[in-house]
């Protein structure tokens, strides 16, 4: 019976610290994003003036914000399509064919995922360097003349970002799909091949439908995470430049809220992107809905 009286206290002592930390550093700041988006606050006058939806109205007329949203959407679409196509195909190859050194490839492909985005950005900055960069020197070697492409210039910077982001993401998703593909029964492929189905048919008719649930959830998460990764890469690699050509939604938010100290305006961007990411993942979820297949 002593136990009974201690039970409530035990539960409280176990759950309270986590709940308090969660409340202070996650719940309240999240509420604050939305609350502050309705106020005007700057660094030197820490009083808050309620301005209603003014911040949002200003946003819709802000060409820089529109450009940053366009860049974000471009990255979401292109990075997602390339990463998923490559990751699925490579995962299928590595699981289905008898490849020597499978484990070696798996280990190597996962490496970008454990590196800090700062490190990856520094590596790619060195690769992209116009005069001493490895990429231009490689291109010069193959073309026989001096190539001096401005990889981080206004016209190329988004492509350069896409390459770096795909490089970072591919391995992680490949290893993940390999895990789910290896659970597909081998006998399915054998009977399909007896029926005359080739590799490509098997891939589309057996592999993809069977791991569809997995693809669907990862796709939803990937889209949300691309919005965040885009920010990390831009912050470390280009700072949004040159001339805002590589600004993405969250980097623009950070610039407004932190660097410019126009907190209310920045938080309005944050709130909008937050809602955008939820809407987008709901949309993807709805569009990719299929009957679950089980053989």
């Amino acid at each position: 019976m002593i136990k009974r009286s201690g039970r409530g206290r035990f539960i409280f002592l176990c759950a309270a610290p986590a709940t308090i930390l969660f409340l202070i550093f996650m719940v309240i700041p999240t509420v604050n994003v939305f609350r502050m988006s309705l106020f005007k606050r700057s660094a030197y006058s820490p009083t808050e003036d309620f301005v209603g939806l003014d911040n949002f109205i200003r946003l819709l007329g802000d060409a820089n914000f529109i450009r940053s949203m366009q860049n974000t959407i471009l990255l979401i679409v292109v990075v997602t399509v390339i990463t998923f196509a490559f990751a699925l195909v490579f995962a299928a190859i590595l699981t289905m064919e008898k490849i020597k050194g499978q484990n070696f490839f798996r280990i190597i492909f996962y490496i970008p995922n454990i590196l800090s985005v700062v490190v990856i950005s520094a590596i790619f900055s060195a690769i992209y360097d116009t005069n001493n960069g490895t990429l231009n020197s490689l291109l010069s070697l193959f073309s026989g003349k001096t190539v001096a492409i401005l990889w981080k210039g206004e016209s190329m910077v988004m492509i350069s970002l896409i390459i770096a982001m795909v490089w970072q993401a591919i391995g992680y998703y490949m290893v993940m799909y390999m895990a789910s593909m290896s659970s597909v029964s081998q006998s399915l492929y054998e009977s399909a091949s007896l029926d005359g189905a080739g590799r490509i048919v098997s891939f589309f008719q057996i592999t993809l439908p069977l791991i569809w649930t997995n693809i669907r959830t990862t796709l939803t998460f990937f889209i949300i995470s691309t919005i965040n990764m885009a920010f990390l890469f831009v912050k470390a690699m280009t700072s949004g430049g040159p001339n805002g050509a590589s600004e993405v939604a969250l980097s623009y938010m950070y610039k407004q809220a932190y660097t410019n100290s126009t907190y209310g305006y920045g938080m309005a961007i944050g709130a909008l992107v937050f809602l955008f990411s939820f809407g987008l993942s709901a949309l993807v979820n709805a569009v990719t809905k299929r009957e679950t297949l089980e053989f």
Partner: protein
Amino acid sequence: MEHKGRSSGERLYKIFIYVVLILLAVTIIVPVAWVFMASIKQNSEFYGNPWALPAGVYLQNFADAWNKARMGEYMINSVLVTVLALAILLAVALPAAYVLSRFAFRGRKALNVAFMAGLFINVNYIVVPIFLMLVDGDMFLRKIFGAGFLLNNVVVLAVVYAATALPFTIYLLSGYFATLPHDYEEAAYIDGAGYGTTMIKIIFPMAQPSIITVILFNFLSFWNEYIIAMTLLSDPKGAKTLPVGLMQLTQAQQAATEYGQLYAGLVLVMLPTLILYICVQKKLTQGMTLGGLKG
């Protein structure tokens, strides 16, 4: 005849696969290896052919990075923050996950839903509100004690890291705790053990594999993180973590061209994660299917 044609096509396909796989592996290995190579080059060597092997082992780069670029100091900060954050996280998340998954009490469902929802809140959105909260807190403290200590404080940074990692960690640990049969606790209670003793002596040791997974993933994310660190440790002369210091170095490098120091700094950031990865790569790639959806 037909059989022969098929097998030579088969061989071509195999060769094609190997070529593509090796090419992909090369695009990952070469940039990383190149950084290690560049870190022992003298500054003058950076203006020649980027593919040239280093003329000698120039370890002065590391000494310069360590002292002049303050990387040594940042390294100590990074170790401190990472270890402290992991300790806080485990001390708080383990008991919480335990009671949330194995005890019936009022409000349990609401708490579970709240932590689940926390999985969708990315820290990039709330970093500025957290910063402002600490600014306000410091202002309040200054009024009472004459000094604020919340900003530019590595301990506070560690607490924020731990708090923002809670949803993922609790989700992962609860998933494991929920699979254990209740017999363990009942047997312990019959033997006269209290709730706390049972949890610490019986349940936690069994959860060791999950705890290791939690430590691995969070080590990587804390060690590599730089957005929160950059925001909360804003004093230019104050404490910094390694990735933030490195980012400064990349930005300074564009002006001052201290390439050697930069690459030595890169190696310092990468090396701990690479060593850890080599030791536990199996665990990491297996663990990811467990907590598969970490954005």
